């Protein structure tokens, strides 16, 4: 590409970015203002009171903390379930198995999250298939509460994030030449040893990228807690929504969003730093060898 065309080609994206970030900049500015008394809206003077209020309110901090812990748990579960799934999709000797799993995952990926939430409500409900099965098997005496609580939100969110993780890692596992694993096996490593000492370490950067993706989806979850939490599960997005639409305190909602954004970006930076560190270490090792 010739250098002259570049600025012109970048213009549409620059405008788009300016629009998005401009909107957030306005919101960020509002976070330093005060709510107008008695009605939605805001007024001066500028100050840090909204930030102070959030950072000194144990309830608000607890919700931020719970959201982060919950997002970490969902991320770990996605890794534990998603990696084997991706591995089977990439390495199963049976084509049917590979195609079926990949097809199911892509189908899940493409169906809307709201549809899935309602699907889970029906499956996991008191009179749902899962409870019917548990009762029929005699594992429980009365239906177990699987929705309208954290369990329901966790299951639905995990189901939502799993394809993101599995598909990210799937590509990476596929790109590891089968010969590398065969070489390990030839040198006497068992299947488990090959898996944990060869395949997994090679794909660590993909695991970290996938985990970062899952984490950012989980930490910003809004609809799943709303639909499946039965009013009991409140993540930070739901908290911010309440400040906007129940308390009508736009400046405080803006400050809460900004704090949340900073925490989320910091966590994501940690993920990327980790990914970079792993890649650098591997490059250094390769250099030494």
């Amino acid at each position, binding site marked *: 590409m010739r250098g002259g065309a570049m600025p012109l080609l970048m213009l549409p994206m620059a405008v788009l970015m300016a629009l998005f970030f401009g909107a957030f900049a306005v919101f960020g500015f509002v976070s330093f203002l005060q709510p107008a008394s008695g*009605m*939605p809206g805001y007024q001066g003077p500028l100050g840090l009171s909204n930030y102070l209020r959030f950072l000194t309110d144990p*309830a608000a901090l607890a919700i931020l903390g719970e959201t982060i812990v919950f997002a970490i748990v969902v991320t770990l579960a996605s890794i534990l379930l998603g990696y084997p799934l991706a591995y089977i999709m990439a390495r199963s000797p049976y084509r049917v198995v590979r195609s079926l799993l990949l097809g199911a995952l892509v189908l899940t990926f493409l169906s809307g999250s*709201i549809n899935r939430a309602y699907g889970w*409500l029906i499956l996991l409900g008191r009179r749902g298939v899962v409870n019917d099965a548990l009762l029929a098997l005699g594992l429980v005496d009365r239906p177990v509460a699987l929705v309208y609580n954290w369990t329901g939100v966790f299951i639905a969110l995990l189901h939502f994030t799993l394809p993101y993780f599995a598909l990210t890692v799937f590509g990476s596992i596929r790109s590891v030449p089968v010969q590398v694993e065969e070489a390990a096996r030839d040198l006497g490593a068992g299947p488990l040893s090959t898996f944990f000492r060869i395949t997994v370490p090679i794909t660590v950067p993909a695991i970290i990228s996938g985990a970062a993706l899952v984490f950012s989806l989980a930490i910003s979850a809004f609809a799943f807690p*709303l639909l499946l939490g*039965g*009013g009991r599960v*409140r993540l930070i997005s739901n908290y911010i929504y309440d400040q906007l639409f129940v*308390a009508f305190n736009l400046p405080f909602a803006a400050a809460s969003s900004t704090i949340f954004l900073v925490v989320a970006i910091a966590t994501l930076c940690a993920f990327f730093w980790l990914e970079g560190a792993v890649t650098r270490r591997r490059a250094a090792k390769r250099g030494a060898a």
Partner: protein
Amino acid sequence: MMQSILRKSASALAVAAFGLVSAFAGPAAAADKAITVQAWGTTWEQGLQEVADGFEKETGIHVVPVTQSGSSDGLARLQSMADAPKIDVWFSTSSLAARATADRKLFAPIPADKLSNAKDLIDGARMDAYVAAYYYPLSIIYRPSLVKKPIAGWKDLWDPAFKDSLATPDVETYAGRMLLVAALLNGGSIDNVEPGFKAWKELRPNIAMFYGSDSDSRRALAQGEVTVLVGPPSQAAPLRTDGVDVAVLSPKPAPVMFDVMTLVNTPKQDMALKFIDYVLSPKAQEIISTKIDMGPVNKSVKPSPALAAVLPAVADQVSFDEAKVNADIGTWNERFKAEIAR
């Protein structure tokens, strides 16, 4: 009234998108004799569309509906276009209207002499800047086939037999009325909600879900996820249509609420006022009563027999000072989320 949560979750996007669309569509796209009315989707489909059709036949003014998932979302949309609103009449809960119409730049007063039906309205239905379209109580709706014995009053809900089987609104939904009922039942009042929090906390083992959306709670009742629902009687009609057995009662104290119409400060105020007046007319109130199952605010209209059977006796009705509700609801909500909905 609340509608489906999925739309609630997309509300922020909708606000932005609507702004964009209306900016491009401009005045050229709108016919001269047309007004835009923002209301809840279900309410619109159930009956307001029919009202609007009658209005157009009579006046030649076309009504363009814009749906909102909840009145809070609707207000956010209105505020986003505050400089040149493209909505002429906005339907809202009375609590939110009381708060929002303090903004006299966005909303215009509704002069009584412009409403031919003003003299026929029930008490409390008309304020300076909003007029009620209908009223409804907070009632108990339940599935007789799934409960062991019929429910006679609010106190029955505390019976351990109802473990894990109730859906109650959260504080945001129906503007804290659940808390206020619990307070009144236990010697409290709007100025002393402490007994309400205590009683609601004691009710927790019986509550399966705290809902923020009518359609969600209705579905839970239809599926038997819950057997009892605290909400307006209009929740029962769609279930009955689907063949689900439901019973409704409005025991004392029955908080009565209005859904109201506000007049947005636009150049089409005259036409908008005509529409508001038409909604208050006996003809429109009949439709609202029979099709949406909401209490008519025009004294000359009798509620439909089915609705009359479940509306609370006048002596059992209670109403609350919206200004007090608005001043405290943010605090109530935080406390509710921290102590009860956990």
